[in-house]
């Protein structure tokens, strides 16, 4: 890269990481100040691990994200298979439009619209509060579904149609051909969809804000409630931990990517060697 590009990259990185660096540094501050660093201490981390409400919110977030990711991946993959087999152009166009809605609509409208429906239906049944874990789960599955479908569908379309046919010609039952040939082909899409759904659910604040009841608090909502009042560096300690977890997961996925790339390369080389022999 040229010098100018390097300087520009540096500036962008400073802009992107300055706020995070400040969170990191001040989470180790012994005093409450967010602008003057007095001395190193783990005080705020101890406070964080004593805060049972926040820890409960972490658990809630994980439970919700895992459930939403699994449900939306199963339903979304099935939907992609179905859409792929769809013959009617009009039905296909209608489904595409509907699937696009949660991705295009601002989160605040998705959140409000679901909340209005839940409140209305709840009132029909005479419930005092109709927002709870289930409504939140429904909301999360709803906004994750399009992303799963969007990951799986292209894999189905890229797949060579002759593959399952060949498997059946060679004596596979249709079901076996589907499981043994089609599923492995679309598996990368399913996995990416699962991970996307999980992270989207983990990070969502706006839709959760409108669809959560009093009883069930996720981490983003907990953070929102914490930042309403004056914030203690306890939240910074939490942000620091989140940052390192993300960094660790990213490194892990990069390493495994590199491993797969290496494995693919070696396999190709082996095949080439064999052919040359």
């Amino acid at each position, binding site marked *: 890269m040229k010098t100018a590009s390097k300087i520009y990259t540096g500036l962008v990185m400073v802009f992107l990481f300055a706020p*995070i660096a*400040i969170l990191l540094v001040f989470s180790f501050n012994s005093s409450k100040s967010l602008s003057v660093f007095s001395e190193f201490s783990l005080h705020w981390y101890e406070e964080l691990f004593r805060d049972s409400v926040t820890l409960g919110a972490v658990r809630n977030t994980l439970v919700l994200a895992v459930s939403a990711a699994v449900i939306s991946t199963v339903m979304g993959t099935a939907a992609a298979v179905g859409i792929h087999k769809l013959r009617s152009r009009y039905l296909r166009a209608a489904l595409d439009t*509907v699937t696009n809605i949660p991705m295009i609509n601002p989160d*605040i*409208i998705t959140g409000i619209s679901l909340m*209005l429906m839940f409140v209305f239906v709840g009132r029909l049944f005479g419930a005092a509060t109709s927002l709870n874990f289930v409504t939140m789960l429904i909301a999360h599955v709803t906004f994750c579904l399009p992303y799963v*479908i969007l990951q799986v569908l292209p894999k189905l379309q890229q797949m060579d149609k002759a593959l399952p046919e060949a498997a059946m010609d060679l004596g596979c039952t249709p079901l076996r051909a589907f499981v043994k040939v089609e599923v492995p082909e679309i598996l990368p899409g399913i996995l990416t969809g699962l991970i996307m759904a999980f992270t989207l659910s983990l990070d969502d604040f706006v839709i959760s804000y409108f669809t959560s009841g009093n009883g069930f608090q996720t981490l*983003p909502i907990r953070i929102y409630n914490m930042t309403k009042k004056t914030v203690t560096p306890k939240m910074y300690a939490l942000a620091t931990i*989140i940052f390192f977890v993300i960094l660790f997961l990213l490194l892990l996925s990069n390493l495994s990517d590199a491993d797969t790339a290496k494995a693919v390369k070696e396999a190709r080389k082996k095949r080439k060697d064999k052919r040359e022999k």
Partner: protein
Amino acid sequence: MKKNASRALTLVQRLALAPYSVWAVLFIVVPLFFVAYYAFTDQQFRFTTENLARFFTATSQITDEAGTREVHTYLLIFWRSLKLAVISTVICLVMGYPFAYMISRASARTQSVLITLIMIPMWMNFLIRTYAWMTILQDTGILNGFLGLLGLGKLHIIGTESAVVIGMVYDYFPYMILPIYSVMAKMDVKLLEAARDLGCSPAGVLRRVVWPLSLPGVISGVTMVLIPSISTFYISQKLGNGKFYLIGDAIESQYAANNLHFAAAIAFILMIILLAGMAVMQRHANRRAVA
């Protein structure tokens, strides 16, 4: 027999669509009708256009340097949201476009490192990121401390529109870079070389080859920044000190006050305007593509 099994499998695969179809109708389509239903009814669910009328006619008095004036409350809020969102989107585009281009021309290894670095802040919760900016921009915050060390005096940023724009640019910047980068990374280098060989100047290559090819990425980047920034409700509360109410804040505060029908009316208007805007943009993009 095999034919029967095959037909049965196709049937099962078609049926696989059923749960999603039901779900999509129940939880994507029907809720949107509820927005319209609430927007056009009063507390007793009787038909009314009062909620919508209130958006266009409600007035309030504001006092600033120019004196006291009577303004249309929600029209002003909407205009302000649009203005700040457009400014943020333009800044993201101007900052992000050259950066995306630079990344796409770097070595494969550098590309993956830079993209990972850009994505890390995205995974930090946006509330925390916004809050971090609040501590940086405060009058007694780190930025002013730093400027003081350099002997540059102090800047009053928090509680101004600039602070809100900084927050929006920071939060949504990656959403501009990633789509533009992904289009540029797929661009055929040979096209650029061919243009140069045929006598195009470097600026000409950018304008006539790179820009038109990257347009789909630019369009999706612009939508991905514009829509969340026009509808945000946290950034303005924290960085604008609550002085710069945006359309998202208006919806949120009506919701918090349990004024669901008016909240729905504002959401309904926002939705209609965004849909119209997107339709215009899509048509424009299609015409460009045809030309």
